[in-house]
């Protein structure tokens, strides 16, 4: 019996740090925002894309985490329109973002991360902010550059011709062009 208790005690000491303190609920951002009261102060896990900027304020970093149809579209492919964005603020403290790459934006599919933290709905001490106070962030996929193709040559050429032509016509109308030489013969 004494041996059994000793074994149990040792096992508990070893396993305690790896067991979760509170169960975390995997949830999407849309549900968090529509059921905000129900999830207030609940530990949640959200998988999404970091977009915009890393708001590095020294002790904490603020980011926007989007969890919408665009998060799950493969980078580099022809983007399919699938509605508006759905995002939420995340406050990260003491979490390194070194390997994450650039946040999402034009030409960049931002890092896909799994954020675990406490959901705060209209936080009273922070003036009513709604956000996830992250305790853990796992990088699922680094950010990927999705550079756009070169210029639209047809648009560029037509635009340039019309601009030059329009400006010459306006200048001619106001007698701003030289009245002799090449201009007189060919343009005016």
């Amino acid at each position, binding site marked *: 019996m004494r041996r059994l208790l000793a074994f149990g005690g040792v096992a508990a000491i070893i396993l305690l740090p790896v067991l979760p303190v509170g169960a975390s609920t995997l949830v999407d951002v849309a549900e968090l*925002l529509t059921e905000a009261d129900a999830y207030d102060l609940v530990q949640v896990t959200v998988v999404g894309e970091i977009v*915009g900027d890393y708001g590095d304020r*020294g002790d904490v970093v603020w980011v926007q985490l989007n969890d919408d149809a665009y998060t799950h579209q493969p980078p580099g492919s022809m983007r399919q329109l699938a509605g*508006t964005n759905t995002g939420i603020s995340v*406050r990260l403290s003491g979490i390194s973002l070194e390997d994450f790459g650039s946040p999402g934006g034009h030409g960049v599919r931002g890092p896909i991360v799994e954020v675990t933290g406490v959901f705060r709905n209209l936080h*009273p001490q922070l003036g009513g902010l*709604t956000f996830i106070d992250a305790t853990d962030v796992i990088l699922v996929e680094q950010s990927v550059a999705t550079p756009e193709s070169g210029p639209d*040559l047809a*648009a560029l050429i037509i*635009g340039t011709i019309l601009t030059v032509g329009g400006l010459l016509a306006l200048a001619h109308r106001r007698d701003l062009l030289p009245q002799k030489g090449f201009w007189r013969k060919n343009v005016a």
Partner: protein
Amino acid sequence: MLLRPSIEDHRSIAHDLGRIIGVVALAAVVPLVWAVAKGEWQSASQFALLIGISTAVAAGADRLRPDPGRAVDWSHGMVVAALTWLVVPAFATIPLWASGHYARWIDSYFDAMSGLTTTGLSVIQDLDHLAESVNLWRHILQFLGGQGIVLAALMFLAGSGALSLFEGEGREHRMFPNVKTTARFIWLVSAAHALIGISVLTLDGIFVQGFGIGRAFFHASTIFMAAFDTGGFTPMSTSIAYYNSPIFEGLVTVLMIAGAMSFGLHHAIWHRRRIGKNIEVRTIAFTFSVTLLITMLGLALLGVVDSVYPMVRIGLFQVLSAHTGTGFTTVSTPELASWSGLAFAGIAIAMALGGMSSSTAGGVKSLRIGLAIRAMRDTVREALLPDGAVVSHTYHHFGRQIISPTLIRSVFTISLLYVGLYLLGAAVALGYGYELGPALFESISASAAVGLSVGIVSPDMPLFLQIVYILQMWVGRLEFIAIAALFGFAASTVFGK
């Protein structure tokens, strides 16, 4: 008998319209440079195309210049102003539509109209991955619309048509006898605010938000244009909630107030004149206090927040955003949609009342509210006082003014037309099965150029409802008179002799 407009009338209108389209070409140079600097070549090509088409149209219209000695009719200016807000968004859609962020062309027209009328409602998809130059263009449209694209043209335009163009944009008070000088003053005020506003917001972006210099400047420029012109577009999908900062919200608040002030009031403050007696100042202070009180009481009753600081911060910002017609939000759309009862009423009333006349704000406007209250008060006093008692029918608005029956008739007519416009959009939404509350909220938001939404405005909204909202934004921005002039002109062209 209707007189058919002559060919000279049409030439004159086309000429002025062409000149205003020339302003679009000038404005598009800014996002073109931005696109080149950021290597956004697709967008750069589209801005080059926009500049080319606008320049060519402006040059073509310039050839229609009417005889300088010919007097320009008052209605011409009104017709040009009304057409401007229909035609310019069509040109502005070129880079928006080509960006690939809109499912239908009408969606990009909706956003362009929303931008120019400084409404702020949007049906753009995946905003968070939009090219910076195109995002900047959306905000420049708000700046152009708020400052008055017609005003921009007026800076280079003289003549008897200038005054009616000025009034056609929904502006009433001239600070100077000359409209051109007034236009220059308005742009001077705007430039001064831009310099200070963008600088301060950029510094906040760098030192408080922790953004890089380039991104801080981008956020500052876009938010400045949207705040000062009471537009409501933001570069990110979560609106002002993106910034998570009371300092940032405070700075934006100052800009929203400055934007909702009439340029006459800016002029008075610059010249250190007393404004305490001004009927608009008193009215807006009163209506803002009442709507704030209603909203906060509503939030308390709903139990949305249970402590004072968040209630004041959220309530103050949302009511101010609604009253100034800006449309920024610090709470999510589902959160805003969940506000019912007094909180809903407070925000909806604030939106419907609007800002000051001759400002970038929409809605009924505080001058009309103040005059209506004054007229009702005078009527009651006349009824209660003994026969022979004299009741003064005056008010303070940049000096002592007389309340004439014509003025009161005009005040009540325009105010009733706004109420009718609010109800019209709500009725159409009700027809599509939306509930009364959201239907009314969205209709007021579109008509009063606010931009707050509880979810009806979205990329998959019904097409006809979308067209109704576009028309509401157009009519609401121009305050009816210019629209009536346009319909009159069209009727004369068709049925006149």
